[in-house]
């Protein structure tokens, strides 16, 4: 059980990292992009905007905690 937990924790840290909100936001953004594309909207602009918003939000939270 301990090894399983360590294994899961390792992959969580490896992929999700310090801020789970970024990973969750990316999943939502990709889902929305897929949805819009299947509705006929070529939503190429959505992911770059989401990246900027998620990155800025994550940095803002981190720097607020640090100060």
């Amino acid at each position, binding site marked *: 059980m301990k090894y399983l937990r360590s294994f899961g924790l390792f992959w969580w840290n490896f992929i999700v990292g310090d801020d789970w909100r970024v990973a969750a936001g990316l999943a939502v953004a*990709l889902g929305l*992009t897929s949805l819009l594309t299947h509705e006929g909207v070529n*939503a*190429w602009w959505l992911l*770059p905007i989401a990246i*900027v918003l998620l990155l800025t939000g994550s940095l803002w939270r981190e*720097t607020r905690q640090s100060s």
Partner: protein
Amino acid sequence: MSTSAILILLGAFLASAVEFVEALTIVLGVGIVRGWRSTLIGVAAATIVLAVLIAALGPALSVIPIGTLRLIVGALLLAFGLQWLRKAILRSSGYKPLHDEDAAFRRQREEAAQAGEEQRAGLDWYSFTVSFKGVLLEGLEVVFIVISFGSAQGRLGLAAAGAAAALVLVVVAGVLARGPLERVPENTIKFAVGLLLTSFGCFWGAEGAGVHWPGDELSLLAVVAFIGATSFVLVRLFRRQRLGLVPAEVKA
């Protein structure tokens, strides 16, 4: 050579070089203090595990449809790349200390010197486990980047060549320097790698979700430029914010 091919080669090379430099620091720190036999056996054991992983993952990925593969790889690269980019921006703006390879090397040597003597299977167990874990964990990131970069564009050989070139360069430089490669501009390279991973993740993730990029492959350069410019602005903003928080007497 196309734009994406150059960026794949460059991305795999830079990302691998950073990870190899970190692995080299661990291996040197342990090997110099505690001897080379068990340390190098640890390196060899980790290399075998990584090779098995590549042999298993490479063919398995080829059966996944390219659209699904790009969506999965894009999502993973985005999550992974944004972690690198986030840390690089925090370091550049002064919120996180810069990674110091020389300090890491000294810390590794101190820990190696203080660790107790434990023999298992005829090996110095500390040297074996530390070098095994170090090479495996840093190598895992290399495998992840090479496989994701290579598989999403069907250029696994190109990405592997970039990683192999980085390995040769780092090992030769390490042997010549006989110490950690503290002069490598690691933080700048990490910034560039974070930017490339995030840009490729964005490009492939969106393609996997069904998007048609205007200008096709050329838009990858636009994505790199857009995320790069945004990161630059964020560094300036957060640096200014941090300096605004520092008391006047410290600034003087």
